[in-house]
């Protein structure tokens, strides 16, 4: 490269005040290869850009270095200007003379010297820049949504309504997620089922949505626009096509006493079951661990121990021999909406830093329950038909105590973040309790009330003022059984007094935690997660629903604790991103990716080991007669994101990362 133009920007006074831009431009003029070096007040302005374009045309420049602000600010601007003048945009580079020089130094002399040095780096580097062409890859315009809670449902419906096919994968037998377990929703107190169920039905009936319930993502290959997803369809032991959802099998199942997951152990289900009456799809599944048929078989009993469900099934849908099966789908984008799990109180935690809350006796004292169990008690379709009754003796609790922040905001033994929804749902519980129990007394122990949101603080005030919940600011140290009541020992930090309350029931507002198996899913998708297991967005403010793997988007509580409105908003945002991606048949990508020098490559595949994206493929090099000479690495252009870890790892430096090649870095270092 020999005809380089250097353009030094004053940025008004921003650079010019501390850097002698005239001296910089003069100095660079003398560098071999530079044919043109000028300074100007505002390079990014129209006249400034015109100067660059004019110089490219008139002086046949084959490289442009703009000494101005951060490339994060204006690299695109200047590359576009260069392209407009007929220069390949990747032959234009920026030296950061503002953020990295004039703004952080006072000594004009030394700042100018440094500015010259920074510009020199770029001049030397650009001598080795190559013209690059944007990469275009075709897009498979179908989407995969993982998780059928409210976020997944919303994302699937939005994409499907946008005219694109969606595959919705849900690991449970029915979609609906946690929202289907809730009684009413804050701050409007509309019934959760009433607003959710129609959406679930819509999913089932939408011509663009293929629902794969009781299924899990097994593996994900490929890259944006071109993912191949293998999905495991777990064996239901029921033929989905034959089953008509009549429910006879459940009625006749002899094992009626299994604590139901949907009712959080407060209600019973059968061994063949649909999780709840409004389930979508309304097809039962056999719990093989509890079913007498399978238990007998596992014990080696030759004759079938039970087969009641198969006997009563009209359409003969029961299939005891059903096996897991696999389907592979081609999709162009993936929305992850896998939701959350509740903090398991008093139980051994999988992480050593979390210790649980043995002092609250959850699991030992039957009338200590968690928030989701309270939801089931309060739900009209729940085990008590919506009556608040104690699990121990079925009596109505006249005094109920709610403890907030169980697990949340507790660095000593829980997790430090705020779970965000608990303040609101505890207020809701207090209001529901007030509606349902005459002369009941609700007491809430809280640390702070966090009720930011439309109508949220008003809602908490309503719990206090209209439902007469007594809010005490403080922690509870321990719960004791005292006859058939529970003695709550705590402290009211506002009065400074210790408090002891005889309660009939205690509800723990437990933290929202990331799903337990998130690491394996994140690995399959090559996306990252924080130390709590919540999936990382690409940028906390500006790219909240994207991930660092192009084509993978996030919705709902898998990214951080979220309530329903937030989850739905996020899901619609993710759907908009997917539809935006699908609006083009071809996808354009920056060409700053790795390429392998296949002559020098030895095929040791260290690059393959370190590549975070699985972008390295193996390719056979053959001679004229078709014999394999050697197997070398090849970079999949669609998958490579351009981190360059392969290049630094390659012992013989047979990989080059475009835009940051060894020659470019070497040249810059040599300019020291």
């Amino acid at each position, binding site marked *: 490269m020999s005809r380089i133009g250097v353009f030094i920007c004053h940025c008004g006074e921003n650079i010019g005040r501390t850097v002698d831009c005239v001296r910089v431009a003069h100095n660079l003029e003398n560098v071999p290869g530079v044919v043109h070096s000028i300074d100007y007040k505002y390079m990014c302005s129209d006249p400034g850009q015109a100067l660059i374009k004019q110089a490219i045309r008139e002086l046949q420049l084959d490289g442009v270095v703009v000494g101005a602000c951060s490339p994060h600010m204006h690299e695109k601007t200047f590359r576009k200007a260069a392209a407009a003048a007929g220069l390949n945009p990747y032959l234009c580079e920026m030296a950061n003379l503002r953020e990295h020089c004039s703004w952080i130094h006072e000594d004009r002399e030394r700042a100018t010297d440094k500015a010259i040095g920074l510009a020199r780096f770029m001049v030397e580097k650009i001598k080795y820049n190559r013209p690059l062409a944007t990469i275009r890859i075709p897009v498979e315009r179908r989407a995969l949504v993982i998780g059928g809670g409210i976020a997944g449902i919303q994302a699937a419906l939005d994409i499907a309504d946008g005219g694109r096919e969606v595959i919705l994968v849900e690991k449970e037998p029915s979609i609906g997620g946690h929202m289907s377990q809730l009684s009413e929703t804050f701050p409007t107190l509309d019934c959760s089922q009433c607003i959710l169920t129609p959406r679930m039905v819509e999913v089932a009936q939408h011509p663009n949505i293929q629902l794969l319930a009781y299924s899990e993502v097994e593996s994900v290959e490929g890259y944006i626009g071109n993912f191949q997803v293998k999905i495991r369809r777990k064996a239901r032991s029921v033929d989905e096509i034959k089953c008509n959802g009549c429910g006879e099998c459940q009625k006749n199942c002899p094992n009626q006493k299994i604590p139901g997951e949907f009712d959080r152990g407060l209600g019973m289900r059968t061994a063949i079951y649909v999780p709840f009456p409004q389930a979508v799809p309304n097809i039962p599944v056999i719990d093989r661990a509890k079913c007498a048929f399978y238990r007998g078989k596992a014990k080696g009993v030759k004759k079938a121990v039970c087969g009641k469900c198969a006997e009563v099934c009209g359409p003969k849908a029961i299939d005891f021999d059903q096996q897991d099966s696999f389907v592979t789908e081609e999709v162009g984008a993936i929305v992850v909406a896998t939701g959350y799990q509740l903090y398991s109180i*008093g139980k051994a935690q999988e992480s050593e830093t979390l*210790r*649980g*809350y*043995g*002092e609250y006796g959850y699991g030992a004292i039957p009338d200590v329950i968690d928030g989701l169990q309270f939801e089931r008690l309060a739900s009209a379709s729940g085990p008590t038909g919506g009556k608040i009754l104690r699990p121990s003796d079925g009596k109505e609790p006249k005094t109920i105590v709610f403890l907030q922040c169980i697990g949340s905001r507790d660095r000593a*033994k829980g997790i430090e973040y705020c779970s965000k929804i608990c303040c609101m749902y505890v207020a809701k519980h207090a209001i529901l309790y007030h509606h349902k129990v005459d002369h009941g007394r609700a007491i809430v122990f809280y640390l702070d009330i966090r009720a930011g949101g439309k109508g949220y603080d008003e809602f908490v005030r309503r719990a206090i003022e209209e439902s007469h919940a007594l809010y005490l600011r403080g922690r509870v140290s*321990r*719960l*004791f059984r005292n006859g058939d009541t529970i003695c709550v020992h705590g402290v009211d930090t506002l009065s400074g007094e210790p408090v002891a309350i005889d309660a009939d029931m205690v509800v723990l507002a437990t933290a929202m935690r990331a799903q337990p198996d998130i690491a394996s899913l994140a690995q399959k998708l090559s996306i990252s997660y924080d130390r709590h297991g919540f999936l990382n967005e690409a940028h906390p403010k500006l790219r909240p629903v994207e991930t660092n793997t192009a084509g993978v988007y996030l919705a709902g509580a898998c990214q951080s604790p979220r309530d329903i409105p937030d989850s739905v908003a996020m899901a619609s945002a993710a759907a908009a991103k997917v539809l935006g991606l699908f609006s083009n048949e071809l996808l354009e990508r920056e060409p700053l990716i790795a390429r392998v020098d296949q002559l020098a490559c030895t095929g040791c595949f260290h690059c393959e080991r370190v590549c975070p994206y699985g972008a390295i493929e193996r390719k056979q090099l053959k001679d004229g007669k078709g014999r394999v000479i050697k197997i070398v690495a090849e970079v999949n252009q669609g998958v490579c994101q351009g981190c360059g870890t392969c290049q630094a790892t390659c012992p013989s430096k047979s990989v080059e990362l475009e835009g940051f090649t060894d020659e470019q870095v070497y040249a810059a270092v040599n300019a020291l």
Partner: protein
Amino acid sequence: MRLGYFPGCSLHGTAREYEESLKAVAAALHIELEEIRDWACCGATSAHATSRTLGVALPARTLMQAEKQNLDRIFAPCAACYNRLASAQHALAHDATMASQIRSILDYSPKTSVSIINIAQLLSAQAGEIQKNSKAPLNGLKIACYYGCLLVRPPEVCKFDDPEAPNSLDHIVSATGAAPVAWDMALECCGGGFSLSRTASVVRLSRAILKSARSAGAHALAVACPMCHSNLDFRQQAINKRNRDGEAMPILFLSQLVGLSLGLDPIQLGLHRHFVSPQPLLDRIGMGKLQPERREQV
């Protein structure tokens, strides 16, 4: 197995039966206890209540003695002694100012790698052995395991059991054949060192513990701390008399229970030394009479 042994003051005084039973159990399980030469009082509650430095220096000196004796594991049966030794070690490891202060006092800097274990740690590691060597399993006995304040807390010092829902003692009691009961007061305070200065408080606190154990159906309480033992055992007569709470509840050291299950002689285990006679308990598992003439008054 060879272990450094720190008896502490109580085991040579008010809690002689704790030491007697420990030594008998240790011998039966082939554990060699080597007493630390010239050990000093751990400082108990008084030292660190008056001076934090003294509260660290006293146990640090004992750690130094143990180190000189090449002991890399120290067994401190008394929960309070254990707590003081472990806390001192924690301070030496994490508080540089304190560590340098102690260095200048002792003219020595104790290593912080010596491991300090309490009776729960020792015996729960031996649970398999206890079960295997059990000659008289305590089937049918219901025991309330009492951890008190100091055995598993604070968590950053003790680090071996859940500080709010511990189960190590229950684990050991299960190994003896007895059944640990689920109860609420396993971690509550008995009144500790206020036994003499604020007796009324001690009586109130200890009574709540006994009541809770009784209502959970326990036949006896198992403890790991001489101070707790003295409050629950010695004060029980007064408590029961004043409140008519019910039958007396024998308070046994954990090592005594283990000893009984190993078939050791109740007298050798010091069972005759308690104020509340464990005789009803022995009757329940079909053991002989404690010899009344050998009963000594403390």
